[in-house]
């Protein structure tokens, strides 16, 4: 049976009441209910982040200092990469809503074009997140602590963390409390090597136990929140891909409506919506 139903609908379809109370189909409504529960999960994660950040007495890392790298380029570009990722995701949300609009006009070619661009944008975003994770885990050089309790940032030109003291451009910077890789006093040459050799601790990059950016919870929340969101994007790309294949096969055209594109679209916009909040509360604030 296709969706081409007779105009007089049976009472079962109309919730036994003779008319639909919400003028919305079962599938769309259930998608909305799922999104509300999923939104609560993400809210839980972000509120937990806020709780930890607000209750901690340690200095919390600053987003525009930690996230300032771009692929293939040296130098400092605060938040540019995250902004690019945000732009890609918003753009793919726009192509999705255009696919839904084309579906309402039964324009199969239009749906295919816009849905394909949506899948492409989503794949780009997942790839960008993989790069960002790699960069975050590797870190920018790390820091050492001395027996007296002083903390020095480790700098070198190649961001080498295996043998940083022998990489070109090696120098140490006495850490400024609450800032990342920044400080007033620089040590170079023999002096820097001596401090390096007398280090009691070297923390570089990030893992679940410790990280060079700040308290361990900072990296834990980074992995958990962006990871959970990234997994949503990944499944969204898969769902969109399946819907795209079904559109190409003409399944929805025969059915008489493109509501499946609309339902997949709701999920996809939700993923974009979550990122808007992650962007603000994890990176900007």
């Amino acid at each position, binding site marked *: 049976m296709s969706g081409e139903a007779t105009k007089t609908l049976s009472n079962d379809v109309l919730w036994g009441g003779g008319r639909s109370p919400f003028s919305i189909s079962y*599938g769309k409504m259930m998608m909305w*209910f799922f999104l509300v529960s999923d939104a609560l999960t993400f809210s839980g994660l972000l*509120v937990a982040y806020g709780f930890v950040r*607000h209750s901690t007495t340690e200095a919390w890392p600053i987003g525009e200092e930690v996230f300032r790298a771009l692929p293939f380029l040296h130098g400092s570009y605060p938040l*540019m990469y995250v902004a690019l990722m945000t732009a890609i995701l918003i753009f793919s949300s726009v192509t999705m809503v255009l696919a839904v609009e084309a579906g309402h006009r*039964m324009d199969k070619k239009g749906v295919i074009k816009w849905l394909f661009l949506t899948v492409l944008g989503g794949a780009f975003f997942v790839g960008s997140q993989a790069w960002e994770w790699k960069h975050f885990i590797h870190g920018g050089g790390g820091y050492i602590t001395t027996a007296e309790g002083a903390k020095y940032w480790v700098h070198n030109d190649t961001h080498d963390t295996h043998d940083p003291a022998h990489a070109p451009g090696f120098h140490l910077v006495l850490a400024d409390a609450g800032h990342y890789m920044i400080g007033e006093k620089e040590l170079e040459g023999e002096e820097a090597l001596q401090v390096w050799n007398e280090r009691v601790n070297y923390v570089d990059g990030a893992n679940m136990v410790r990280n060079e950016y700040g308290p361990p919870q900072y990296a834990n929340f980074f992995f958990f929140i962006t990871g959970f969101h990234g997994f949503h994007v990944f499944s969204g790309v898969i769902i969109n891909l399946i819907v795209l294949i079904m559109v190409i096969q003409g399944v929805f055209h025969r059915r008489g409506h493109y509501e499946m594109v609309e339902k997949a679209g709701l999920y996809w916009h*939700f993923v*974009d919506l979550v990122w808007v909040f992650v962007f603000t509360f994890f990176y900007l604030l």
Partner: protein
Amino acid sequence: MERDDIIEYSLDAHHSEEEGRQIRAKIWRVTGLLAIVTAVEVTLGAFWHEWFPQAWHLVKWTFVVLTLVKATYIVMTFMHLGDERRNIRAIILLPYGLFILYLIFIAIWESNHVHWAWEMFQ
């Protein structure tokens, strides 16, 4: 068996070429707005230290407000919730809104006390 995805009673399941043109114009308008808001957020995030070194609280609340503006446009226009009936809008937004307000309140309240306790007994 009767399909359960029959959408005869769904609002806006189909529209004409002319309506499509208007909807597309609206989509592009909202896109421009979202792009501008994001650009403002990023610029402010990167340069507020130099421009408004004392005004972190103001900048912070600007971010929160701009985020809510973006969220409203995504939910109301892109997710078409603004075009649905008022009752479906209410059963989706109200329970979530009430719960999240409570969650934020309790998180701020409790984290204040935990912060105080750690400072006290460290």
